[in-house]
């Protein structure tokens, strides 16, 4: 049995921890059946507003709701300050790292990171070499996934520097909570997250190409309504008051990216793209892509459009790169990383591979390019047969995998028919980078709804919670 997980709300003696004190007394004063009814009401709100996501490979159930749990996850101001400092340091390091690998490559020359890990990485884009985006910002919008294992022990689980998703749930969860329980927000002083769309818009506008005159025109590029995150793309465009465009709306004319409107073609200055690098420009990347804009990379290189996040930032999401993050942070900031990495074995290294194969039952194995909880093995809960099959995959392509110890993720209670029950959670705070780094106080808490499960991904039966950061 795994050791008992750290519960963020209750101590072992069943006393509420300080950030939860006010909430707990409110909760105890509530009629349970009313809360269960409220829980249904929340689901109706989500269904009515169409807050859905698509699960790939489920043709019949093409739109699903992410279950929402109405017990908030609460973080104290001091805990948050600590996290925020660590996140800021990390995001600054990520941008410096990106600038370096696409220019002088000093980190390679200094022998801190093997050259082949960068240059033979699929997410490394040679087209970006020597290219410096407006303001020198590569990753404008970052989601840093954080897990907690004890009172004072936080780890960064992964960096999402390419296209972090889920921020619409952060906003809708808060909106729903405020609608259903306004009294809670009188009693608890919760830091606001609602201004995220405004901050994002400002942040993007401030990084418009230098030649842009007047107010920059911003657009969000979506792969379209069949994409799993389409709701979020539409939601953000709506909240920010910017255009929501698809590849078929855009064309390069006279060296500028323009969109087809009812009055002719109009120039776009900043493109927040939610389309992967590979699909961005069929002339540069995948020729068969219809999601992107032919020639946009030329416009980008000529400095006539800002693309957020910059192409080639995906390399930071690579889990082999992740294992070097402590070195990366120290190399660029000159200080030790404030936030810890989860110890990681790179299976490309023979000694590590040997250890991993011998200890499969205790480890979590992940693909270096994987995301969304797909293609991973959770050793302790896998069957003997699953482990044996996975061992074969590991031996065939060791460089494709990393391994980490199974962390005992912290728990926060969820509402169940019989009362409350602890479930494992993680946290994705959202970070905006322009000439400054802004971290939204809160983020998306994902919760594994199955008892004992450590997998919080929405595609694998995870839910979400509103995340509160309290004022001092």
């Amino acid at each position, binding site marked *: 049995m795994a050791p008992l997980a750290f519960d963020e709300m209750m101590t072992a003696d069943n006393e509420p921890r300080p950030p939860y004190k006010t909430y707990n007394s409110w909760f105890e004063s509530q009629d349970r059946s009313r809360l269960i009814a409220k829980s249904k009401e929340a689901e109706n709100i989500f269904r*009515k507003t169409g807050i859905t996501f698509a699960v790939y490979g489920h043709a019949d159930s093409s739109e699903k709701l992410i279950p929402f749990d109405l017990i908030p996850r609460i973080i104290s101001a001091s805990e948050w300050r600590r996290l925020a400092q660590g996140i800021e340091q990390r995001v600054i390091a990520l941008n410096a790292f990106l600038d370096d690998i696409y220019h002088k490559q000093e980190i390679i020359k200094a022998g801190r990171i093997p050259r082949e890990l960068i240059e033979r990485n699929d997410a490394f884009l040679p087209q970006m070499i020597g290219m410096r985006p407006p303001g020198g910002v590569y990753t404008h919008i970052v989601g840093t996934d954080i897990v907690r294992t004890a009172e004072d022990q936080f780890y960064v689980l992964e960096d999402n520097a390419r296209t972090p998703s889920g921020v619409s749930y952060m906003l809708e969860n808060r909106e729903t909570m405020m609608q259903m329980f306004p009294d809670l927000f009188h009693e608890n002083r919760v830091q606001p997250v609602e201004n995220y769309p405004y901050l994002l818009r400002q942040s993007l506008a401030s990084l418009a190409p230098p030649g842009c005159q007047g107010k920059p025109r911003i657009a969000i590029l979506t792969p379209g309504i069949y994409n799993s995150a389409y709701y979020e793309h539409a939601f953000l465009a709506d909240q920010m008051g910017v255009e929501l465009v698809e590849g078929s709306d855009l064309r390069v004319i006279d060296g500028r990216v323009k969109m087809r409107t*009812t*009055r002719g073609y109009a120039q776009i200055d900043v493109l927040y793209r939610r389309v992967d690098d590979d699909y961005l420009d069929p002339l540069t990347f995948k020729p068969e892509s219809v999601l992107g804009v032919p020639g946009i990379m030329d416009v980008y290189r000529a400095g006539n459009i800002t693309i957020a996040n910059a192409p080639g930032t995906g390399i930071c999401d690579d889990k082999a790169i992740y294992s070097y993050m402590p070195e990366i942070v120290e190399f660029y900031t000159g200080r030790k990383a404030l936030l810890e990495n989860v110890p990681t074995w790179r299976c490309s290294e023979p000694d590590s591979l040997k250890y991993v194969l011998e200890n499969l039952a205790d480890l979590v194995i992940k693909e270096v390019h994987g995301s969304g909880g797909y293609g991973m093995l959770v050793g302790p809960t896998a069957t003997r047969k699953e482990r044996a099959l996975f061992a074969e995959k590991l031996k065939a392509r060791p460089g494709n995998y990393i391994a980490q110890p199974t962390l005992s993720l912290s728990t926060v209670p969820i509402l169940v028919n019989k009362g409350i029950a602890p479930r494992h959670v993680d946290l994705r705070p959202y970070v905006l980078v322009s000439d400054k780094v802004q971290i939204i106080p809160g983020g998306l808490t994902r919760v594994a709804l199955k008892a004992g499960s450590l997998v919080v991904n929405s595609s694998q039966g995870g839910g979400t919670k509103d995340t509160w950061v309290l004022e001092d």
Partner: protein
Amino acid sequence: MLLGRTAYGLYWMFRYIERAENSARLVDAGLRMSLTRSHMNGDLWDGVLQTSGVGDVYESIYGQNWSEAIDFLMRDKANPSSVLSCIETARHNARMVRTALTRETWEATNECWLDLKALLARRLKPADLPEVIDAVKRKTGLIRGAFHGSMLRNDIFNFSRMGTFIERADNTARILDVKYYVLLPAVTQVGSSIDNVQWESILRSVSAHRAYGWVYEGEYKAANIADFLILNNRMPRSLAYCYEQILGNLQHLQREYSDRHAAHDTAERTMKSLQHHSIKDVMDQGLHEYIEDFINQNNQLSQEISEGYRFL
């Protein structure tokens, strides 16, 4: 100014909402007529399917067996104009143009889709039909209400309205034409009670039998009914009213964008003809021929709007 694709999505969203409602009304009219014409039910549903423009599709699947007609019109996915298909397409377009809609309009559309999808999930029993048809009218009415109460009167509004009225004009013209397909009266039946019931059904299908009574104070006459549904610009489903609205929206766009397209000329021409012709002129030309002509021009206008405003 908005994306061409957004204008396209709005236009078709509202066309399909209108069509969903009209498909339901058509079934309603068919049901009423079938109550008085039980011995001729076959021809009747053939006529209704022709009116809806899906007779050929139906026959290619079911041949001359009309027992599937109601299901086909209400919920068959093979029929792009069935109520269920229309609502799905309308909601699909609404999702695509989500950012152009107010929350109220989007939620009304999404709810309409959720509710009708549930109501139309299974084959309908005859006893349930009136209730379902009523739900279609009510739910689409709620979308219209939310739209009117909350949307800014800008180009987004104009494209949506043009979709509504192009579709409505088309549907009203087709409903009138039903007389040609099904109800072509034998000379001996003109003015008979059967003839009256048929006209009343047509008026009912456009929610206009009471209004007709107010305006024409009397019995059902072919010329009066044609006048009402074609030329009367106070009747919200008449061709004249639809074209007033279409033209008004086109003129709005012309002022806002300071440009003019072939669509403006076509709409003005049709409007003039609706204003200056009398119902006698129409009947002299032949009602069916007149309507056929109108439907073609209406389609042409739709095409010109799509091209002029770069829908694709």
